[in-house]
């Protein structure tokens, strides 16, 4: 019975081929350092899931952002847990992605034929930091406000176009409701969309070239 159902589905979906391509891949003998990439992926998905829950109550306006976070923390059932996981998850994701990069660097896994995997990886690192930077402003508290003020100011040091970049980030000369809505849409739409696209490409390349082996004396 199950076999029949499976065969029927397999004929149409190609489940067996999918299994061969994704799960039944040959790999060199690995160790625990090879889990950091998938840990990054897990954290990304977890941030997505908790972020979606936070979105239910969060309001991206200077008047209500702070109060909506207070509401999530104090009134919503398990709101503190969801926000806590999202908050610490952001920190941990930066850490894990960075250590993942270090391990890839140390084992020289970025060399032929995995150059593109690395280049996309650096993009992922930058986007992860971008997520941290934009998300930091959203609670609209003192810390967030002033850190973002200074952070966007740094862009002003670019010769000639610095002012333009700063005001493009802020949506004006000072931090305002516009800044919040820009950071908000970057944090929940633009950066995650880019991230998921690049993660897809990253993982496609990993499957295509296979996990690299740890270098031995002859390499």
């Amino acid at each position, binding site marked *: 019975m199950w076999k029949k159902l499976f065969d029927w589905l397999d004929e149409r979906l190609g489940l067996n081929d999918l299994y061969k391509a994704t*799960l*039944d*891949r*040959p*790999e*060199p*003998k*690995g160790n*625990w350092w*090879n*889990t950091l990439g*998938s*840990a990054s992926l*897990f954290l990304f998905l*977890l941030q997505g899931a908790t972020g979606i829950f936070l979105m239910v109550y969060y309001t991206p306006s*200077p008047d209500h952002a702070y109060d909506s976070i*207070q509401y999530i923390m*104090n009134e919503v059932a398990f709101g*503190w*847990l969801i926000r*806590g*996981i999202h*908050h*610490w*998850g952001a*920190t*941990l994701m*930066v*850490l*894990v992605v960075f250590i993942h990069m270090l391990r890839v*660097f140390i084992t*020289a896994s*970025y*060399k*032929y034929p995995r*150059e593109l995997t*690395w*280049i996309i990886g*650096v*993009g992922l690192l930058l986007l992860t*930091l971008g997520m*941290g*930077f934009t998300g930091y402003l959203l609670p*609209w508290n*003192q*810390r*967030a*406000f*002033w*850190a973002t003020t*200074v*952070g966007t100011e740094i862009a002003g*040091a*670019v010769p000639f176009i610095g002012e333009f970049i700063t005001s493009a980030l802020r949506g004006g000369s000072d931090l305002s409701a516009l800044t919040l809505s820009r950071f908000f849409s970057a944090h929940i739409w633009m950066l995650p969309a880019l991230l998921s696209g690049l993660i897809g490409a990253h993982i496609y390349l990993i499957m295509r070239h*296979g996990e*690299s082996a740890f*270098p031995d*004396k*002859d*390499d």
Partner: protein
Amino acid sequence: MREEHKKAIHEKYQRVLQKGERFWPDSIYKDLIISFAIFLVLVLLATFVGVPGEPKADPSDSSYVPKPEWYFLFLFKFLAMYGQLPAIGKVEWIAAILIPVVVLVGLFLLPLLDRNLKRHYSRRTLALTVMVVFVVSMIVLTLLASTPLLADDTGRMTLPTQMQMWAGLFVPAAAYVVLAGLGLLVKKLGERAGQAQAWTAGVASLAMIALTAAVLVMVPPVEVEEVLVAGTIPEQITAGQDLYFIHCVECHGDDGTVTVIAGVEGLEGTVVSPINSQDVMYTFTDDTLANIINYGQQDLGMQPFGVAYGGELGPSEIGYIVTFMRYSWDDRMEIPEGAVSTIPVPAEGEVPSYEIHIQPLVQRYCVSCHRAGKENNNFLMTSYQEILTTGDNVDLNIVAGDMEAYLILVINGQQILDPAMGDLLVDQMPPTRLMPPEYIDSLTRWIMAGMPEMAVEAQALSPAPAAAP
């Protein structure tokens, strides 16, 4: 890269795979274990550490010292140190833009820049040692982030500051130069170049870490003071009540019922609408109330309280006052359990202590006038020390065990006359309406017992309970 190299790499990889494993089921379980462990750690962090509270953003309070997320701290510290350099330190864009961009482009193009075909650690000493120095300097800069960079009177950097500059800038910079130089000499020195690089990176890292540890011991990082952040509604109501009693009672009274202001200079006899009335509570939304407190009612006599308009209250604090008013006076709201804070009153025979009984009482009834910047005969009451050591008549105000102490007299409604001139020295306190009798009693008993600060001291002073028969 030549075709034969590529072929060799592929062949080598196929041989490794022969001896390898399968993603499913050989290695995926490790991924799952790590992910699950991460999830557990996050739940524990969320439960036991939580997210630290912060007051609401206040665009007018530019005295706030900005602190970015910890993973950007190293950049901030780097910029701050770079700014200390003579001459070049003034060209901000070199450190703020040029160097980060060069590092990032280098990182992006690493696979193209690194033409070394070798993969084993012993043959990539340059790349590995540069990375070690870089990561150690990032860690060091992060650790030093909250230690200030200071100059002494003559404008020279202090010793700990110089040590910071070495740890964060000079040592790593020197190390990069030496490492790169050794890299150029590889042809000549062979194996020994790699060893020299490893030593350089090791010594440089140790030096950076040692300097950092020394600085952290010499200059302990500044503790940031905790700001009052009320989370739950009951906490907000309590915080709002305290603030209301400090800032609003002189005109609006304990309970918002005042209709004619008395005893406030310049506003004597001004008519105000009772702000606890249905009229006010039903017609004003929370936002309107917050705005009134923020901007004041200038033309009618109420000064602005928002920091942005010259007052003392930030947006969070104004929010707490509004919450307090709403829950206390709006008959459509039900006050949540545990929200009303009562001032503890000592039991029969118990000696009151500053910590438990007096501090909240004084906070509620006296601090609104008895704090810096108000007219009060220089008698400040915001801490235990101040109460005992300030005031024009400090020697007569509070005298342990003396019923004639000024403070006891005035809170009981007596006026103190100047012994020499005979005119009024101190009015009754609080000037407009005396406190309820149980609080007068509490304050009196505290002075009679000798003003104990801590609850344990007060307990030691209390008469031992009669032994049971």
